[in-house]
């Protein structure tokens, strides 16, 4: 009996402690926050959302209405339609419809996310786990390559792709004849992969270097070479970092306009480029522009809402450590 009593008493004290903690926390909480701050935050949040929300409402309003009245009148005079989206998808841009450009964007983005991450992971592993002379200096140099603004590399890289490399009349690399190939994404993939490398190497290295050395050494003693250690130990362990960087790279490539403008062949333009050229020809037809915009941001928004937990965590792994 006394044992049971003791247990009962024990649970009671535990509950009591938990209750007290909760109450103390609540008090501390109240002291450190103010109602005013919450209200201010809510107001800012509303202001931040209004622009997107306004365009979202417009994208569902009949064309004639959007031309003459503001989107806010839709609350008093609700009338909605899907036809804007259908029309926008089939609208022709410079040489592709928005629907084709959407598919192009997928074809550009997925490989352009995978390539730099794998290549950067290889380099990051070497920087972290293979000892060689000048390792630290070389690593800082790779990090510092972010110094080179994209804009500075665009033109020479383009001529390297199209005209090749000629040294004093001797052609070493004749270039790629991909200008008129309809769905050629090669140049965009390569360019995106190159431009992502410095940051990807830096971020993945930060993570890979933190993996306990004991694990790697144990595997080495068991006879695994660097290839196995990399593929069977480092890659699986680094998955959180790889996943979060992949989300970022995906968003950057999907949202990119500059690289695609320069490197994509006319049939392979992504949706950002198509939307940009269409918004010129659509002029004041806001019902089309708004629908087109929402078609272009639907994928990043899905990625964002589905994966934002990892997104934030991954951001911190790379950013606050740096």
């Amino acid at each position: 009996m006394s044992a049971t009593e003791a247990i009962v008493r024990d649970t009671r004290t535990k509950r009591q402690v938990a209750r007290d903690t909760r109450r103390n926390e609540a008090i501390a909480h109240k002291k450190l926050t103010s109602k005013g701050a919450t209200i201010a935050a809510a107001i800012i949040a509303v202001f931040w959302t209004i622009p997107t929300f306004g365009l979202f409402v417009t994208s569902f309003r009949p064309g004639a209405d959007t031309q003459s009245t503001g989107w806010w009148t839709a609350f008093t005079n609700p009338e909605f339609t899907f036809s804007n989206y259908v029309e926008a998808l089939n609208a022709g841009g410079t040489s592709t419809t928005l629907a084709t450009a959407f598919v192009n964007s997928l074809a550009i983005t997925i490989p352009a996310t995978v390539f730099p991450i794998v290549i950067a992971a290889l380099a990051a592993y070497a920087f972290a786990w293979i000892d060689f002379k000048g390792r630290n200096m070389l690593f800082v140099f790779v990090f510092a390559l972010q110094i080179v603004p994209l804009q500075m590399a665009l033109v020479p890289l383009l001529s390297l792709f199209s005209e090749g490399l000629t040294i004093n009349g001797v052609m070493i690399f004749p270039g790629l004849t991909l200008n008129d190939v309809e769905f050629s994404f090669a140049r965009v993939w390569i360019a995106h992969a190159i431009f992502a490398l410095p940051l990807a190497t830096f971020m993945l290295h930060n993570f890979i270097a933190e993996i306990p050395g004991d694990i790697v050494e144990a595997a080495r003693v068991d006879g695994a070479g660097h290839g196995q250690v990399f593929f069977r130990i480092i890659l699986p362990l680094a998955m959180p970092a790889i996943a979060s960087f992949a989300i970022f790279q995906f968003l950057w490539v999907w949202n990119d306009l500059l690289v695609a403008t320069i490197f994509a062949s006319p049939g392979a333009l992504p949706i950002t480029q198509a939307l940009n050229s269409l918004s010129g020809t659509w002029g004041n037809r806001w019902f089309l522009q708004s629908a087109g915009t929402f078609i272009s941001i639907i994928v990043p928004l899905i990625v964002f809402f589905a994966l934002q937990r990892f997104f934030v965590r991954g951001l911190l792994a790379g950013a606050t450590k740096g």
Partner: protein
Amino acid sequence: MSLLTVDEKDTAELPKTTHGVDAKGRRITQIVVTVGFLAVAAMLFLLIISAPVEDPARIALGPVSLNNFFLWMGALHPLVQIPVVLLVFGLVVGIVLVLIEYAPRPGRGYFIMRLVACLVIPVLALMLLRPYANAVLYVVAIALLSGALLFFADYRSRQGAGYLFQLILFMAPAAIMLLLGLIYPAISTFIKSFFDKTGDEFVGFENYVWVFTNPVGTWSVINTLIWALLAPTISVAFGLAYAVFIDRARGEKILKVLVFMPVAISFVGAGIIWKFMYDYRQGEQIGLLNAIVTMFGGDPVSWLAVKPLINTLMLLVVFIWTQTGFAMVILSAAIKAVPTEQLEAAELDGTNAWQRFWNVTVPGIRSSLIVVLTTITIASLKVYDIVAVMTGGRDDTTVLGFEMVNQQQRFQSYGHSSALAVVLFLFVLPLIIYNARSLSKQREIR
């Protein structure tokens, strides 16, 4: 000299050769590598000074070349291309990993594998690039020689045979891409900035003079400076204030998502969203901003055409709108890491909220603040999309990042474009130097 002096019993340890361990062996290795390096350099030099050949014939390696592969890919449906290219890429990476795994193992078979790989990979890589008839002999010779050199250096390496080979396989893909895609282009742009429009005639600093005297050039410099000064400070200030406001507030998650959402929206999308906000017309307004202005009895304003600077500020608003969420999320996490005890202790000392924030929170999140400030500053220096979408650089809204592409694409003026890119580079330089220095300091401590 026996080729197989590797101790077979040592497999559990890191494999080691006896070569190159003693002073004499190392000296011989050094001499051979130096001579080999000189030979490669001499051949490259010969290649460069040899007379140019008109209309060179193409050497094909059957139908197999990088170009042909990409041509074949280009004919496929975009969605089919994704798995195909990923499969090919995976295959190449797989081969690299297998080579890495087996390279350092002792034994005749692995020795031969290493030798073959050292000789074949460079030659194959060059053939894939379709070298031209007059270059092919040199190029193959250089590839073979450097392969042999690599093999020799690797075989005599102090860390054991296969060590250098592994290291190079790990680093080569990234190194080649960075070399060809960033380092070579940066140097080339720098050189081009001293040549005229077409890149034929040396003009000294003329392009730079153009940047700082022509209205287009000066406006791009002025606007870029405005962007780099205002965008990071305002978005970090907003982001920090918001992070403090929502800290431990009710519905924190939703409030966070609402402000963070623009981060996921492209600048093109954001540009169109805000163009709609700024929309200007006669009569009934459909743009929210002008609707508010007319509601208070004002005249509608064509926001993106108001010179000077008002329109640039309007573009800045879009950028700040997208970046504040980014700053907020990072700073919010940093604020959560500030110990509550410190805040409570400060409160017991009778400080008010503002003093607590300034003296406890801000010092606690200093490093995060610096990271966020640098990141956003660099992003604002390189800005292109917003200007391209919203104004196309009209009415003095151009910035370096945009004008550089504009000069190249619309005016075909490579000199001006390169000079603008170099000026942009000079603006980014100090920020990265600062970060690289603090990075190398950190690594020394580690």
